């Protein structure tokens, strides 16, 4: 029962580790960015999960609404999503430039070419 109650948090941990593993283990620079995205999304899910109040509705000031979910983490995560988008865009732009300069986006090939310089 406890496992099901914490299901969202388990998903967070699995996503986080998946993303982190991709960033570390993959050789392809675009895949690393994908991993970074998965890693960041896990944090978004984490924030949104902790804001949820059982039986709560949206935080609207209206008759009959007494329990509502905490809206603050949602706002924080909107900011974090914007930051994530900017990071992804910049990362991919750098990958394009790296491809122009080195002719490859495989990390080990780039490193081999750098060592020749």
């Amino acid at each position, binding site marked *: 029962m406890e496992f099901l109650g914490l299901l969202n948090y388990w998903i967070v941990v699995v996503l986080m580790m998946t993303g*982190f593993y991709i*960033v570390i283990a993959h050789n392809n*620079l675009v895949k*690393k*960015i994908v991993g*970074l995205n998965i*890693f*960041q999304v896990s*944090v978004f899910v*984490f*924030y949104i999960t*902790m804001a949820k109040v059982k039986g709560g509705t949206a935080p609207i000031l209206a008759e009959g609404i007494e329990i509502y979910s905490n809206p603050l*983490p949602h706002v*924080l995560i909107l*900011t*974090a999503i914007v*930051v994530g988008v*900017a*990071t992804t865009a*910049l*990362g991919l732009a*750098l*990958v394009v*430039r*790296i491809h122009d*300069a*080195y002719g490859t986006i495989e990390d080990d090939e*780039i490193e081999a070419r*750098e060592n020749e*310089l």
Partner: protein
Amino acid sequence: MAAQYPALQVVLALLAAPVCLILRRPNAAWAVATVITWISLALALSLLGRVLETGVILYPMGDWAAPWGIEYQIDTVNAFMLVIVTLIGSVVMPFARASVEAEIEEERIYLFYCMYLLNLAGLLGIAITGDVFNLFVFLEISSLSSYVMISLGRDKRALTAAYRYLVIGTIGATFYIIGVGMMYMTTGSLNMADLAAILPAVADSRTVLVALGFLTVGLGLKLALFPLHLWLPNAYAYAPSAVTVFLAATGTKVAVYAFIRIFFTVFGGVEIFTAGVIPQILAVLAALAMIGASAVAIYQTDVKRLLAYSSIAQIGYMVLGISMVTVTGLAGTIVHLFNHAIMKGGLFMAMGCILFKIGTVQLDQFEGLGKRMPVTMAAFVAGGFSLIGVPLTVGFVSKWYLVQAALEKGWWLAVAAILASSLLAVIYIWRVVEVAYFRPPPKGSAEVSEAPLSMLVPLWILIGASYYFGIDATQTLDIAFAAAETLFAPPL
């Protein structure tokens, strides 16, 4: 008007960045960036004066009361940080004009100034804010702009350096927000002072401990704490000179400040930290950085990279001061933030002048440089003395207080590490001096003259400052000790 200074400190630079984008002309963008930086310095000095006179300044953004709204809290520590960042910016800007023209394609120069202003806004924001999530946002503003600035380097390795820094930096920032999220889960607050008041009551929960772990590793990545420093050497070595000067002198310093803030203000009331094993871990990592990075610096053939490794060692000194958890140790760290900023800024500026004239900073090209560029090389040697910690330099002042703090604690090994690291610094500075002064210039090499005055004057201002504040350190030390004491004072 004076009441709005805290907001203006960040907003001016933030608004000036898009102005550069509209102007497009390199000289106009440079003028805007310079004027804004100088105004920011004036604001920072006035804020520091007010803090020293009347104590903490609280500024609720948009009049939303804390802890719900975002509040700027300025005490001696961050007022001093604001001055360090804007001071370095103000000296770098005149230097940047010629250096950037030589190193960045003309049609990209205005973009550089735009990114510089965003970076300045981000760094000032980190230093001024009293809200842990707001700090994350500014951290990302400054990081994203620094990735772009590094990638502007001429060498194609600048691109991969920027990419690797982006990946590591993003992991660090994400770790930081995981930590913030966990603190928010247990306390329901994001305001630093409010967190400091609530955390002691819930300090036994595992969530808070895990949060502290995430925050430590996240900020450790940002400040290049050994062994999380791998992004730094290439990023500093291949970035344009002006960028290296600015980032080396301010970027990691502000991250060290954030680290201090989290540990001493937010977790100030929590005993787990002061009694736990964390200080020992930090001290060991710091000592490894001081000795390991200095040893690696000796074997570098690129002098910018050599200085980058020396920066990692110097960050070790700062972390060592933090790990002592005493007023003297922390004051040593804070004064070293300032001292290292001016001396490393000066040394990287010397590299900028050499790159400007001979187009490379490979050590084997330095032969005879003592005769070919005497003013620049003299500045390098003078700055090198400071890095080693020769008396009358700022490097000596920082090391003196760190050694004193270590003796107070009876940490003999830390004293030995400081001495060993200084001896290693003698070796790597000597290697450069030996090549530049005691080897004849290669036959047939053109007579090299000095870089333009607009680069030499800022260089000598920083080198001169590293002697001025080394001979009369009372001003900086007074502020550093006052700052360290406020960090140990019970929260408001």
